[in-house]
């Protein structure tokens, strides 16, 4: 009772605020609930679910996507390993379950929503299989801890072993299904992951260059970074859309996804460079001096001492960068006509069956939901990781 009084009705003014905002909140909540469950016409989503999620991915190869999802679930569950409990009391089973719900509840919720929307048994089966794969992954991780033979396998053998399944599946998917048919939510993820992957080495090089003592190197790196950071991503994408073919040898005609990935990579590299630079600056000078005094060459010093620490320190910021990139992939839909989730979302409202019925709300709500859950989940995980690593660079 005192909690209520302290937090809601501390004073007259306070109580007034509570009532006004409380009423507002209830009004909005009611509107949302009404929209979702009563007045919303979700048929448009149900009918176009595949298009929204994977674009025009060939039907017969969809099992590759499902398989990749399962393999990924297994891998993430297994590679994470079992947390070492440093506190005196290991958490109870109930606490662990509640923890799990807090962490993955949203994802699971969305998964269930998708299954309900698709309304066929195939997706239920898929959902069950993914859950099974994750459970299997946890069991394997546990087994590694408990079974002597498994725990003796060195880390550098075990991890790649676990990664074999998802990587082969993803590679297969890439080779079998032409990239230009990919679309929907899948393509947002794919572009983001490829771009962050490619931009990373370039970004690290730029960061090292910016901090270098050699003036020309520093100039080149700083110029690149500042030029890119002053430019709107949208304009760069538009430029790539009409101009990229001018810069490659004639007779080479790059597809839109290639253009998108190129621009995103070059763009993100500049931002990654700034993030890594922050990490490099956090390493005390004494470290480099100690390394030099031992006789380490500059390359070895950077590779063994400076970079590992810097990169570890900026993991949360890096994840933040990835989340931004993930959200920005929507721009490729408009600038380059990539058939991403947002693009599909607006396009389906113009289909013959749904034209002119004002279904844009339903479409955008679904699109917004998927992006929101993805971004929110990733930022929570990043916060969790930050706490676990005990690092935090503003």
């Amino acid at each position, binding site marked *: 009772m005192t909690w209520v009084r*302290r937090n809601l009705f501390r004073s007259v003014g306070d109580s007034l605020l509570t009532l006004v905002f409380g009423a507002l909140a209830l009004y909005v909540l009611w509107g949302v609930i009404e929209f979702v469950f009563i007045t919303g016409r979700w048929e448009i989503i149900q009918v176009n679910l595949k298009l929204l999620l994977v674009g025009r991915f060939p039907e017969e190869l969809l099992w590759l996507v499902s398989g990749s999802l399962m393999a990924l679930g297994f891998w993430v569950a297994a590679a994470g390993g079992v947390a070492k409990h440093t506190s005196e009391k290991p958490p109870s089973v109930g606490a662990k379950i509640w923890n799990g719900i807090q962490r993955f509840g949203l994802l699971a919720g969305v998964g269930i929503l998708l299954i309900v929307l698709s309304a066929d048994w195939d997706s239920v089966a898929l959902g069950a299989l993914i859950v099974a794969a994750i459970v299997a992954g946890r069991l394997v991780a546990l087994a590694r801890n408990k079974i002597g033979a498994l725990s003796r396998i060195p880390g550098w053998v075990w991890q790649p072993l676990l990664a074999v399944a998802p990587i082969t599946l993803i590679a297969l998917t890439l080779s079998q299904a032409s990239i230009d048919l990919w679309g929907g939510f899948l393509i947002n993820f794919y572009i983001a992951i490829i771009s962050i992957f490619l931009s990373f080495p370039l970004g690290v090089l730029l960061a090292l260059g910016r901090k270098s003592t050699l003036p020309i*190197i520093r100039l080149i790196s700083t110029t690149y970074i500042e030029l890119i950071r002053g430019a709107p991503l949208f304009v760069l994408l538009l430029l790539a859309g009409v101009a990229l073919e001018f810069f490659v040898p004639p007779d080479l005609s790059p597809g839109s996804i290639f253009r998108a990935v190129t621009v995103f990579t070059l763009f993100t590299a500049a931002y990654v460079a700034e993030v890594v630079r922050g990490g490099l600056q956090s390493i005390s000078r004494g470290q480099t001096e100690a390394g030099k005094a031992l006789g380490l060459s500059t390359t070895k010093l950077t590779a063994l001492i400076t970079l590992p620490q810097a990169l570890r320190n900026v993991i949360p910021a890096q994840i933040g960068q990835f989340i931004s990139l993930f*959200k920005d992939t929507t721009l490729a839909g408009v600038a380059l006509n990539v058939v991403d989730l947002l693009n599909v979302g607006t396009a389906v409202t113009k289909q013959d069956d749904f034209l002119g019925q004002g279904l*844009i709300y339903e479409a955008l709500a679904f699109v917004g939901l998927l992006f929101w859950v993805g971004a929110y989940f990733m930022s929570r995980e990043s916060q969790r990781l930050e706490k676990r690593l005990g690092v935090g660079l503003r």
Partner: protein
Amino acid sequence: MSSLPSAPSKPPIWRDIRVLRWAFQLLVLALVMAMIYWLYSNYQANVAKSNIPTNLLFLDNPANFTIPGNDLDQSQPVRDAFVQGFYNTLRVAIVGIVLTTILGTLVGIARLSRNFMVRAIATAYVELVRNIPLLVLLTFMNLAVVLQTFPRIENAWLPLDLFVVSNRGIAIPWFEGSGTVLLTVLAGALIATWIVVKLRGRSSDSTGKPARGLLFGLSTFVILVIAGWIVFGYNWVLPFVDDRATSGGLRLDPSFFALLVTLVVYTSSHIAEIVRGSIQAVPSGQAEAADALALSGGQKMLLVVLPQAFRIAMPALGNQFLNLIKNSSLGATISYFELTQIAQITVGNGSPAVPAFTLTLLVYLVISLVTSVIVNIANRRLALVER
């Protein structure tokens, strides 16, 4: 002393550390130059094949399109269209920055409120908006809200009888009279207010009585503006529906409105986090010292915490302002005729793509640089004033 070798041996070139450093740099430079050359030669080859000019002469060609909300003639050169686009970008940027700072600061403070309801709503707002892509928000604002929810002109909403809201835009009451004169009046009033506040401050310093700068300053400002209003014969004009359009007042273009609201809402969620973080970064000892001095809650915030928080937040805020300016380029997706949209249209009409977009990029770069400089000056001023 006698056992030293006669003269220092010069290291061979390939082991001399200075030579090595420069050789490395020149090598990298050569690589970069080679890459640029390769790109450039590709460009030349392709351009020669397709016969598209690569200079800025296209700026003199007639535009062949009109810009809504503006009397640009079709035959005026592209250059003028670009200038108009630039103005439109500035319009949405400046208004946007002002509004988003206000909203963001309020939400940021709200996130630290002791009232649970206020705190919860602010947190929900921030978490909701932060994680949605800007383009999704913008599309929603444009397609769903403005084009769909807002009524057609025949059934326009007339909130408070002062505004006209329809899917053609929002009309607000505006003044009738010369804009420049009004700006001068406002500027004069601001200067006068500043003088009054300073004088009150000085009188308060010597007499000890409260300065009440806010009271005096505000009254001065209001009185002067009203006086100027009457003297120069200004009039309020209320908008009304006139056949299929609105007359009178200032009409805010629907895409301008959509873009502005989206940018403000989106950026303010980031600013709220920055403001919250910087308030929390002010050492708690500061608030404690303020309490020990018996300052009221408002005084504590205004005089002690916020100024320091602002100083901490300034660089990050500057970054958000830059983001807002760059994000305004998304206006092109909803037909708001800012710089990027102009560029897209002229390219669609036949202007050469690479020069047009490069020019656009350069303009954005310049805007970014100028904003960075302004933010840096603000940063330094804040630090100086405090010290």
